[in-house]
């Protein structure tokens, strides 16, 4: 037992107690100060952080605007696609989870593992997609078993659907995930990675209007990322609707008539340039892109020798062949080189100078030929001479006034301009002067001349309507959710030429004979209920040199596909009061009369099927006709 006096009575100790107590109080004061700093000065900052912890902003994708044809037929739609995703905080050990999930989805466990690894780059709070676009049944299975599948969720997003399958795929274009490069551009500043964006054609051109505005869901989650309740929701606003000038029925008829051949068909309204059908074949299935194409599928599309990804309406450049003859005829008439009644003798070939000989397609020759017969039976010799007497620059001038050799100004698709050669062009391009022989072959649409199917349709429409080249247009109107038109088509004249009515009529009469009179090159394609006018063309792909080869060429089956001639046919109907123009190009199809004209015929059948054609335009089927 200590004999010391109590501490209270020891002054030194007492002082220590006072100091100790003050120290204790002081340190508690520091703690209080810190609390004041955190809770009073920092309250806003920390409440923000706390909100960020517990509140997730989930984007609700807006359905993309639908695309309709001119009559309101749905061409491009949306459907809900279910994606099985994983919230990584909630999953725990994914290796334990995947066997069960793979079993439910009836896929390989490895596939899930692959997606899991691939998605590790995503921000942690973002759901990691494991399997995209699962069927409704698989989705329901996963939902029923959600108790066994912590952290697994079903995401619903709208995906493009195509009721008509591959039809007009080149026109619609396709969607793809926005790329890292695009995300860096200001035009895509409002996009998030993983979002789908229009990559080509209409989908790309009208991306802004079709896209709509995404909605947002604010949800409260716990630390495992499990959704506890929804706080607020802002509904998405779907994109604007696109009404095209396309007529689904005509489009379909044209695609069907082309069967599996490569080529293009364009149908124009001759009086305003509206495009009623826009066919490029072979085509692709845009639904592949909606769900994402695999590398193999993409390579197959790109390496296909028939170029399914190329929009041939805009980017296919073909020698127009005999379909160019109307232009040459009008140029010759305008230049006064010929009159409709000027005749030339055709005995199967034409000699230029001493050493050059140009053959007519008909070896036996056409005999005495005037303009009407030259077009109707497609006599080359008549045009060789008419062309020579007119001169290349006169021909080129006429061609240009029909819109050839220049872009039509089509909205998208990297349209090509085709080619109309002139003396100046050749000098500039090759540094050599123009030869008469080149004028000769230009007169039948061979040589340097190139035109796109769209230009050919436009040219034909101008012949039909008296000389006006309308800008080809595809969008009729853009309509917002309330049904208000945001944009309406206004026809636009690209150029107008006052051709002499007499000359035009001579050419048109001849074109009508091509189809409707015995001996016309498209005589087999005539229709009973409506008279249409047209012109066949057969464009050489390679120049054949010898007669032996020519003999061989008679049998198309023997010539390798890529050396076969292109078949063309341009036309309009009804002949006396034109409404629509149709241009058909069948790549390596052989003869225009046999391969291309029947396609146009099918288009007219579809177009006039439910139309009451004025009596005077309907051919009266007389007995003995």
């Amino acid at each position: 037992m200590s004999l010391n006096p109590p501490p209270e009575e020891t002054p030194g100790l007492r002082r220590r107690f006072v100091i100790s107590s003050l120290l204790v109080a002081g340190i508690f004061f520091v703690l209080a100060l810190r609390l004041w700093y955190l809770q009073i000065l920092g309250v806003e900052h920390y409440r923000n952080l706390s909100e960020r912890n517990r509140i997730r902003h989930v984007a609700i994708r807006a359905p993309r605007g639908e695309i309709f044809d001119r009559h309101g037929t749905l061409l491009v739609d949306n459907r809900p696609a279910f994606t099985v995703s994983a919230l990584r905080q909630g999953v725990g050990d994914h290796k334990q989870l995947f066997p069960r999930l793979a079993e439910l989805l009836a896929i390989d466990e490895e596939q899930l593992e692959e997606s899991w690894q691939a998605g590790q780059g995503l921000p942690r709070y973002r759901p990691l997609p494991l399997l995209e676009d699962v069927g409704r049944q698989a989705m329901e299975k996963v939902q029923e078993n959600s108790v066994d599948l912590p952290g697994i969720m079903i995401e619903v997003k709208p995906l493009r659907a195509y009721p008509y399958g591959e039809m007009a795929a080149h026109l619609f274009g396709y969607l793809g995930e926005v790329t890292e490069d695009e995300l860096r551009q200001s035009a895509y500043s409002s996009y998030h990675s993983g979002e789908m964006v229009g990559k080509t054609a209409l989908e790309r051109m009208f991306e802004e209007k079709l896209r709509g505005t995404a909605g947002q869901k604010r949800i409260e989650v716990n630390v495992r990322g499990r959704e506890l309740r929804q706080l607020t929701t802002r509904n998405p606003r779907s994109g604007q609707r696109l009404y095209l000038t396309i007529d689904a029925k005509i489009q379909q008829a044209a695609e069907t008539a082309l069967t599996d051949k490569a080529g293009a068909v364009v149908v124009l309204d001759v009086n305003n340039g509206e495009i009623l059908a826009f066919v490029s074949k072979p085509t692709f299935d845009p639904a592949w892109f909606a769900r994402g194409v695999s590398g193999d599928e993409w390579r197959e599309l790109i390496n296909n020798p028939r170029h399914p990804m190329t929009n041939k309406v805009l980017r296919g450049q073909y020698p127009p062949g005999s379909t160019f003859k109307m232009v040459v005829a009008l140029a010759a008439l305008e230049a006064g080189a010929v009159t409709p009644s000027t005749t030339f003798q055709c005995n199967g070939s034409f000699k230029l100078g001493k050493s050059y000989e140009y053959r007519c397609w008909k070896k036996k020759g056409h005999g005495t030929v005037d303009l009407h017969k030259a077009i109707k039976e497609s006599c080359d010799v008549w045009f060789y001479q008419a062309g020579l007497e007119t001169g290349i620059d006169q021909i080129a001038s006429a061609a240009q006034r029909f819109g050839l050799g220049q872009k039509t100004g089509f909205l998208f698709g990297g349209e090509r301009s085709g080619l109309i050669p002139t003396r100046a062009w050749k000098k500039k391009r090759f540094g050599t002067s123009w030869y008469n022989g080149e004028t000769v072959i230009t007169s039948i649409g061979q040589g340097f001349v190139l035109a796109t199917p769209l230009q050919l349709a436009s040219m034909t429409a101008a012949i039909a309507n008296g000389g006006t080249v309308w800008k080809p247009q595809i969008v009729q109107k853009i309509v917002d959710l309330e049904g208000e038109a945001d944009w309406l088509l206004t026809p636009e004249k690209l150029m107008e030429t006052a051709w002499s009515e007499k000359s035009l009529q001579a050419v048109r009469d001849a074109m009508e004979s091509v189809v409707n009179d015995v001996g016309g090159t498209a005589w087999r394609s005539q229709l009973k209920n409506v008279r249409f006018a047209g012109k066949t063309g057969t464009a050489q792909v390679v120049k054949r040199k010898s007669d032996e080869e020519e003999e061989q060429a008679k049998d198309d089956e023997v010539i390798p596909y890529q050396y076969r001639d292109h078949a063309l046919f341009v036309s309009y109907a009804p002949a006396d009061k034109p409404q629509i123009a149709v241009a058909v190009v069948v790549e390596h199809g052989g003869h225009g009369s046999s391969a291309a004209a029947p396609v146009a015929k099918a288009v007219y059948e579809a177009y006039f099927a439910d139309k009451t054609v004025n009596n005077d335009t309907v051919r009266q089927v007389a007995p003995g006709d």
Partner: protein
Amino acid sequence: MFDRRLLTNFNWTYLLLILLISAIGIANMFSATSSWTTAVQPVYIKQLYWLGLGVLVVAIVCVFDYRHLEYLSFSLYGGNLLLLVLVLAIGRTSMGATRWISLGGFNVQPSEIMKIVIIVALARYLSETEHLRGFSLRELIIPGLILGIPALLIMKQPDLGTALLVLCIGGTMALFAGIRRSSLIFLATSGLAAVGGGWFLLHDYQKRRILTFLDPERDPLGAGYHIIQSKIAVGSGGFSGLGFMKGTQSQLSFLPERHTDFAFSVFAEEWGLAGCLLLLGHYCLIVLWGLHIALRANDRFGMYLAIGVSAMLFWHIVVNLGMVIGLLPVVGVPLPLFSYGGTSMITTMTGVGILMNVGMRRFIF
């Protein structure tokens, strides 16, 4: 021999203060664990049992005159050292540390007992050895060994938090006994040097904790997560708090270890600065009251006992609060009466019992 004066001198207010803090702690635990559905018995009920046991411990400790401890002190100390050695030899390992030893079916944590025993042993030594000018370096060797040996053994387990606390408790007692200024300066400088050197002896996770304390953003999802989430919880409490059971950080489980080491963060989020200051005041009061008991103790041994217990309470409170509000690194130190855990409750209540024992026997010779 039972003296009625003992009951008269029993400090009922102090016990009520302790019970009040415990009650708040249990209510807070109820809120912190309300989202748990799997527990067989909710932890707040278990904590209630521990509190009952704690009160029993206070009663038992009060019955015997604390002066018996004086005679027992060195045997207790020796026995405890033996247990610490045994822990290292045959202890139960969990989570990379060996802290527990099985004694007759009970799991005992000798390092925790050492918190009390070191107080008793040092109280005995310091009360018998007074130096008017304070301890010199040489005179500090023996108390240094008394303190250092168990601290080293505990650090070896490794249990840095408890070792640190034992050192703090003993150090505080020695400091109170008086250390010469020159010795103090020497100790402080060599202590700083030791900290520098000791850095290399730390486990990786301990280094990480310290680095992360200095900059929690280094590892926001790993080691820094605790501090960041705790500060968010405390800070978003604001002045008046989000309300009982309404703290999102705790209710949605963003706050880890929220019924044990980070229980105060839950309280701070739900009760705000107002609640915190009130609780802080109570804690401050039990420490100061402890010092007051020491001041009025009947003898030097009683005084040092009371100072030791006050230091134990003080350091637990300050280290835990300092941790959850981001002033000190994360060391696993529970907040007395507030964090869930039987061990902590029994240790604290034993200390409280000793304090009251000293307080009620100040008039008995």
